Each structure stands twice: as structure tokens, then as C-alpha cells.
């Protein structure tokens, strides 16, 4: 079923418009720093544009660190789904188990006799 209707953000112009309004808001917020006298509670937040810079840098760092974490922690979607442990981690753990099995066929499994 193909939907032929045009929606609000199907037009790139609207996205552009929205983003421009957003950029304008950001600029205004920084300028307001000079207009409104802030009674600060701490030496850090009396720095010029402390909150904008902290928010921006914080989020960029957050995303970069998270992206890096992906390399370390990401696995396939069905990583936990498989019921048996052996078949899921074929790389390191299983090879060892297999090689041991090959050497000593007896007693490599749970069953005693």
C-alpha cells in the first residue's frame, strides 16, 4: 500500500525552516546571557556561556563514547536467544572445549556414566 500523501516533513524546505528557527533560538539564548543578570551559585556557572558549552560538549562526548562502546559491547540481536551456551560463543570458548573433546572423548560432558 503506497501512501501518496505529502506530510509536513516530506518537504525538505520545512525541515530547513525548522532548523533555522532552532539555530535562531540558540543564538538568542546565548545573547540573553548578557541581557539577564544571572545570580550564580558557583564559580563554574559564572563562566561565560557555561551551560551552552557544557551541554554541547557533554552530548558530543556522550555520543562519541557510546559509539566507541558499541565496538566493545555490541553483539548480534539473538545473542542471548540460543538456549545452549556452546553454539553462541563459537570463537574463543567453544574452540577450547572442542579441542579438549577431541583429545579426551570421555567425560567431556555433564553426564557421569
Amino acid at each position: 500500500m503506497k501512501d501518496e500523501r505529502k506530510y509536513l516533513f516530506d518537504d525538505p524546505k520545512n525541515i530547513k525552516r525548522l532548523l533555522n528557527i532552532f539555530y535562531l533560538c540558540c543564538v538568542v539564548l546565548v545573547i540573553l546571557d548578557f541581557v539577564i543578570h544571572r545570580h550564580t551559585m558557583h564559580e563554574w556557572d559564572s563562566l561565560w556561556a557555561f551551560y551552552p558549552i557544557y551541554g554541547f560538549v557533554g552530548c558530543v562526548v556522550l555520543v562519541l563514547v557510546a559509539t566507541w562502546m558499541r565496538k566493545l559491547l555490541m553483539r548480534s540481536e539473538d545473542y542471548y536467544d540460543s538456549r545452549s551456551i556452546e553454539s553462541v560463543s563459537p570463537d574463543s570458548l567453544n574452540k577450547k572445549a572442542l579441542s579438549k573433546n577431541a583429545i579426551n572423548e570421555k567425560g567431556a560432558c555433564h553426564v557421569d556414566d
Partner: protein
Amino acid sequence: MWMIDLPPFVPFFIGALMLLFTRGMLRSAIMLAVPILSALHLWMMPEGVHLQFAFFDYQLIPYRVDKLSLMFGYVFHIAALIGIIYSLHLRDTLQQVAAMLYAGSALGAVFAGDLLTLFIFWELLAFTSVFLILARRTQRAYDAAMRYLIIQVLSGVILLAGALFYAAENNSLAFGYIGLDSIAGWLIFIAFGIKCAFPFAHNWLTDAYPEATVTGTVFLSAFTTKIAVYALARAYPGAEILVYIGAAMTCFPIFFAVIENDLRRVLAYSLINQVGFMVVGIGIGTALAINGAVAHAFNDVIFKGLLFMSMGAVLHMTGRINGSDLGGLYKTMPKTTILCIVGAASISAFPLFSGFVSKSMVMTAALEEGFDWVWLMLLFASAGVFHHAGIKIPYFAFFAHDSGIRATDPPNNMLLAMAIAAALCIAIGIYPQALYSLLPYDTGYNPYDATHVLAQTQLLFFSALAFVWLNLKGMYPPELRSTVLDFDWFYRRAIPSALQNAFSVIWRVDRAIRDAVKLRLTTYLGYFAGKNDRLSILLSRDYPTGSMAMWVAVVLAVYLLLSFIA
């Protein structure tokens, strides 16, 4: 009159019983009537102890009302009502009864005035809520439910042990300030900590909540962790360790939330992040901080419920919840989109939304008490929560690339529930005095001063700017079908496989030892038999069998002979 003093869990339990014997419109009416009547009843309750009796040497207090418990009592009624409206379309007795019992257990725990009553409801919370996960009726949900149940029951058992220690030390079971200067204090602290999703004990939450049913998650997100927050606020206000635990809880989940694909799991991580703010508030322990923690718990139940409801609506209508499968839903689900954005704005603490008026109390208290670094962490977490819950959730579900899904808005009862929650978020944000008047302390705090509003708005807008910039640069991590490993990897993978390896080694060694011993025994036997063969003829193995038969016959004949003689 005894009816007046009925604890709030009783109507819920009776209601659950009645649900079993009714159906259709009548059942819906009962489900709606229970929280409304119970809330009206609670509203008229004065503070004080309303029910107590002696149990052996101890005084049990199943119903104690004070400002702290009332606050949680009110919000649990609101959450129960919203959750029930949200699930009115269901035709599933299991879920409806379980949800009713679960809400009742939460209310029982909140108004418990002694540790034994608390323990009973603590365990009931686990046993009733697990059915909301099981009701999904998939293998994944079943596995997650079992892990959830084990951890929850473990928390209860530790609580019971702590309560017994406490009773032995203080000769009382009263549930009040406990503190961390005894074994009992630490045991109870750990029990609360597990339910509160402290770091390393948090995976039951991110594991089980996204596996629960669409409506079940809405109930789950409201009660269990908030009970733990309430219990911590009563027993450990001002325990400094909580400040650092809470600060860690606000920060680490946001990294996972950014890369997680299942949007309800993203919300589960952000739930831990929000609970972190409350834990910090309790740890600081000043009047303002406790107020902030309690107010934030109140607001969180509503806005987190709203977010879970909106994602539940998406799951219900499209059958999908992964960010990688969704997108462009604003076109055909405009109402859900707007309601979700209200929830997102509230959790991100935009001025004029509910999160702003409560989170700022905790942040201000952190600065006032000199926790500078913690304050910086909280500020980072505020930016981060906007990033993943405020932007990522609505963006990947409703905007982003067009997934081609053209699902309509959910049934009216779902929309109504979300609308009530959204209205509360905005109402509390605009008129916080109503909320503040219910808080345990009177601090005269006003969130709406120019400095604070400007600072928060700047922080949020520039976090959004970071998102826009990273997205335009193509540096934002795309939603990928994946599993992200967390601490639960240790008990779901590492420990089981380590145990399996260990046992395989143990069995092998065991077999080798047995074989060696058997061999030795056979050798000895052979040795003695050989010796015997050489020494004796009668008992030797070489002697024919027939000779033994003959000797037996001889012996019997001698017996016979003797019997004749005697």
C-alpha cells in the same frame, strides 16, 4: 468505625478478587472504581497510625500515614488509574488481576509501619508483577521473568534477614530511620538497593521491563523502583554513600540508552537515570533535597508512565519497538506523537513541564551542600537524558527516515490515559505549588527564577544542537539490530559457561580418579586371588564347582545325622 481505617491495599485486593468473577463492562467499571474510591478515601485520611496489633512480642503496624507515605500513596493511585484506563481494551484476566494485586501490594508497602509488613508486601510486589511479564507469553519473556523473579525474591530474602537482625538488635520491628551503622542496616540497605536498581544490580530492570506486555510495562515502571526510593527516603536520609551511588546511576545508563535499539529498553535505562536523581536527593538529606527526591519520584511516575504508554502504543499498533524498524509515524499517529513529546519534554526538565520543578530542587541542594562534582555529573546527566529520552525516543519512533509503516493512533482508552498523564505533566510544570504543598517539608522553593530557567534552557538547546550537528555530520550512531552487553552478561553468559567448563573438568577428573581406583582394586583382587590359588586348593578359583556342591551335600548330611542322634 473500622471501615474508615481500611488500609488502601484492601480495596485493591478485593477488587482483584471481584475481577475474577466478572467480565465485560462490569469488570471495567470495577477496575475504574477501585482506584478512584480508594484515592478519595485516602484523601480524607488524617496522618497517624490507623491500624496496629501485637504479634508475639512485636508491634505490627500495617497502616501508618504520614506526609512521606501519603505522597507516594497519592501518586500510586494516579498511576494505577492511568494504567487501568490504558489497559481497558484488554481481554486478559491474568494481566488485569495481576495489575490490580500489584498496585495493591505497592500501596501496602508504602503504608507499612513495620519491617515484617514491609517484607510481606515486598515479596508480593515481586510475585504479582512477574505475571505482567509472563503475560507476554513468549519464551524470551518467560526467561526474563524468571531472572526478574529470582533477583526480586533475593532482595526480599535479604530484607527479611536484615529485619531479623534489626529485631534482635533493637527489640523492635518499627520501620523508621535505620542508618548504616549495623549489620541489619547494611542488609536492609542492600535489599532496598537491589529493588532500586543500584549499579550492578540494575539489570533486572533493563532485562525484564522491555519484555513485559504493552500495558504491563506501564504498571511496572510506576511501582517497584519508587517503593525502593520511598524505603530509602524513610530509612537512610542523609547517608552520603547514596549521593555517589545516585550520581553513578544518573550517568552510566545514558551511554547504554544512546546505543540501545529497543526503545522501551532505552526508557528502562532512562528510568534508572531518573531514579539516580532521587537517590542523590535522599543521600544529600536536607529538607530541600528530600523534597526534591520525593517530588521527582511523583513526577517520574507520571512522565515515565506517559513515555512507556506512548512506546506501548507504537508497539501495540505496529508490532515493532526497535528504533531500526520505526520512523515516520508522526504522519499517521499525530496524537501519540504530541503526547510522547510532552512526556519527553517533562523528563528532559524543560521549563513549564513537570520534570523541571522537581529535578532542579535536587540540583540546587547538591550545589548548596558543596557536592560540586556530583552537581557536574547531574548536569551532564540532565543533558544526556534530554539526548536519549527527550530527542532519541520521539525522533526515531515518529520522525527520522520513513519506515513506510502507516499505523493509526491507538484505541481511545489508550489516548485518554496518555492525555491524562500529559495534562498532569503540564499542570504540575505550570503550577508547581500544588505539588509542593503536599511535600514533607516546607522550603519555600521557587523553581521559576530567571537565572535557573535560562541556564536549563541553554543546556537543553545546546544538547539538541549537538544532536543536530552530529546527525548532519553523519556521526550519530545509527539504530542497529543488536544486543548490547551489560552487567547481566556476567550472570547470563560468563558464569554459566565458566560453571559448565568447570564441571566438565570436574567430571573428567572424577572419572579419571574412579578409573584409577577401579584398576587398582582389580589388580589387588587378582593378586590375592592368585596368591590364594597357590596356597589353598579348597577355596581356589581353579577348583571345580561340582566339588562345592558335593561339600554342601556332605554338610547337610552331617546336619541330618546330628538331628537324628539328638
